[in-house]
């Protein structure tokens, strides 16, 4: 893991806001594999009610970044940034490869249900309240209302 690893930081702003931050960068899918349990545990602490669903969304987004977005010539970097701010959790998954915006396909249609790929985005959309892309497709931002 890279040096910019922040785990479970809690910040009080004037006693009014509570922010919880998770920020970590991975340089290979193997490295991410080793960190999955930590991410699960962190999500359980940040958002126990939706932790499994949010873990599913994060895992799919990271898989997409490693499997579809990475240009190995640049050196792989996939970063997960989570920020809990009051009643919303914002999760950004970014990478340093080629930008891409996956085509959303409704995987429940008869044509798609027999497909061997293409379900990740559909699954993410099911588990978060909003999904958007930025940085020319190198970052996916997911938001979930926690209440």
């Amino acid at each position, binding site marked *: 893991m890279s040096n910019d690893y922040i785990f479970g930081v809690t910040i009080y702003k004037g006693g009014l806001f509570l922010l919880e931050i998770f920020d970590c960068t991975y340089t290979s899918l193997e490295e991410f594999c080793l960190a999955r349990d930590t991410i699960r545990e962190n999500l359980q602490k940040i958002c126990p009610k939706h932790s499994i669903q949010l873990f599913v969304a994060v895992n799919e987004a990271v*898989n997409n970044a490693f499997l579809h977005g990475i240009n190995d010539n640049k050196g792989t970097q996939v970063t997960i940034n989570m920020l809990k701010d009051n009643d919303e959790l914002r999760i950004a998954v970014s990478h340093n490869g080629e930008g891409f915006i996956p085509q959303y396909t409704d995987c429940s249609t008869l044509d798609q249900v027999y497909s061997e790929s293409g379900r990740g985005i*559909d699954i993410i959309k099911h588990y978060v309240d909003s999904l958007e892309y930025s940085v020319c497709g190198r970052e996916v931002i997911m938001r979930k209302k926690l209440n």
Partner: protein
Amino acid sequence: MKVNFTLIDNKVVIKLEGSLFVEDALLLRTKALAYFAEGHKNFLIDLSKVDYIDSSGLGVLVSLQKRALEHQGALQLHGLTGVVLELFELTRLNKIFEIV
């Protein structure tokens, strides 16, 4: 993830335990294809101790089912619960697999 292959009445029974991630899915596919290569065409995958399957794992199950059908065989699933069942339902894969 723990993966255990056994032959019962000429059916390949695959018991999975844990979470099925992309790296596990590739191994599962490779091992299952070796059984196809030996002439086996009927499979039962026990998912009762699986707590999560990612989309790569779902894709591998679809590919194995297609191969079984191409060989006039079958791939059955057993023991879908929790998030695993939810994922099958939201992707409607529960409609194309024989769940026993």
